[in-house]
């Protein structure tokens, strides 16, 4: 079947713009930057304090990568876990509630193109938010000499991981007319795939490997250390693809019933 990315783009650009006509994008972005700014400040001053202590008493201080960059982007992941539900909850739920989905579904655009468009709109907002944090590493470069590698890979990892949340958010939004329900389920699912990691630590050897593999956070570890491993990328992309595939299933059956 033909897939026309231009159609997806029509939807994506419209929904991306819609974020900025409602207060939601501004609230999410402001909250995000506020928390990130506070964390950045906290990490940097903590790192400075440590570095000074090491200087006083001798010994080797940790690198900026370990002391600032890794916790910074690690925390960013957690914040996205909380924020993504707000970003994705309305995508399909609102269309269903207002029945504007009838316009989409009676236009010459496939369900796949529509779903990818919705996904892209949210991914683009996440990308925008990530772009707004670029000045933190810039500050680090101005005052220090951090490794570029881990910064770049952290961004890539964070973006992919967050896109997994987005994909599941799109899925839950397609299941209901109720935005709040969609958002809550998205958060619960994100938390679940996040916490799987803990369960892995107390499970038996084989099972723990499986759980480890399924954990979204586990696949982020390499990225945070500056390692870009195709296994991790494949995992994230598969997760995203699966979420969108299930969305397709949901919307197809919605068509039969409504």
């Amino acid at each position, binding site marked *: 079947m033909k897939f026309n990315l231009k159609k997806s783009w029509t939807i994506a650009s419209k929904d991306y713009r819609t974020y900025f006509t409602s207060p939601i994008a501004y609230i999410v972005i402001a909250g995000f930057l506020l928390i990130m700014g506070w964390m950045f400040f906290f990490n940097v001053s903590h790192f400075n304090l440590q570095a000074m202590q090491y200087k006083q008493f001798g010994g080797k201080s940790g690198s900026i990568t370990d002391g600032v960059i890794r916790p910074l982007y690690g925390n960013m992941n957690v914040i996205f876990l909380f924020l993504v539900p707000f970003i994705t909850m309305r995508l399909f739920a609102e269309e269903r509630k207002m029945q504007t*989905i*009838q*316009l989409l579904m009676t236009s*010459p655009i496939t369900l796949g193109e529509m779903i990818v468009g919705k996904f892209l709109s949210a991914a683009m907002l996440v990308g925008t938010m990530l772009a707004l944090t670029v000045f933190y590493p810039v500050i680090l470069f101005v005052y220090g000499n951090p490794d570029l590698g881990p910064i770049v890979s952290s961004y890539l990892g964070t973006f992919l991981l967050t896109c997994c949340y987005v994909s599941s958010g799109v899925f839950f939004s397609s299941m209901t007319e109720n935005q709040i329900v969609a958002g809550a389920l998205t958060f619960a699912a994100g938390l679940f795939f996040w916490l799987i990691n803990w369960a892995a630590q107390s499970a038996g050897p084989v099972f723990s490997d499986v759980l480890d593999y399924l954990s979204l956070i586990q696949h982020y570890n390499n990225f945070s250390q500056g390692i870009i491993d195709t296994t991790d990328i494949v995992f994230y992309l598969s997760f995203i693809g699966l979420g969108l595939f299930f969305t397709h299933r949901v919307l197809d059956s919605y*068509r039969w019933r*409504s």
Partner: protein
Amino acid sequence: MIEVSGLTKIYGQRTAIDHLDFTVNKGEIVGFLGPNGAGKSTTMKILTGFMPASFGTAKVAGYDVFDEAIEVKRNVGYLPENPPVYFDMVVEDYLKFAAKLHDISKAKLKPAVDTALEKTGLTHVRNRIIGNLSKGYRQRVGLAQALVHDPQVLILDEPTVGLDPVQIIEIRQLIKSLGGAHTVILSSHILPEVTATCERIIVINKGKIVAQDNIERLTTRMNQGLTFQMKVKSVSNNGIQAIQAISGVKSVNLHDGALAIEINPSQDDIRDRIVEAAVMEKMGVLEFGADKLSLEEVFLSLTTQETTEGVQS
């Protein structure tokens, strides 16, 4: 332009439409008339390629609605019961979005939107946010959306519901002007609505087509009034007079021991009052029903006074 054969939709246990057969020719304006729950919206959702049928086939503009849904959607403009508008969008942006979804190229985007705005009388509100417009204007935006890609076929589901009388007249004129260039099928549960805009009517009730004919023939049939048969145990003059006294009853005649009660067309449903009168007069009602066709019952359940509808919202 539209060919429907054996079209059936079953929701779980409920059969919403049952083996519909009809055709609509190019350039025709056809009214789909029936009371609430008759299956009008269901039929339209299938014709637009939105929803698959359970059985039967439908072809629109030469394409099968199931197998060639994308082609059908390209050639159909659809106004659902609730206009599918985004309340937070500006009118013009919304129409651009709808046009892009329908493969209108960038170069033709602006003229297409301008034409749709003009046809629907929206040019002066093109920069307004849709959510701030009145219901009538939102309906027009919905209609402009259906028109923006200049489709061969227009499917309009109750296009004037909730509008005030002035807006109703405007929308009707607009729809009438679309005939010829477009093939239009519009649904309504309001009798005067279809007689005012359509050349031909398909009457549907409980998922089945009960009549399809041109306006003149159907209106003559209706204007003859509706006749009901009442079988009673004992005919009394008092009883006949009591029934005759009910406003809306045109005549009461005795026919083979049964009463033929003719009531005025465009009349509220007074069947209950007729039976009540007969019972009060102790005539012993055995049977009471429509004369021959369920069409007459359908007409009774249609809204015949449009003001009641228009004033509501």
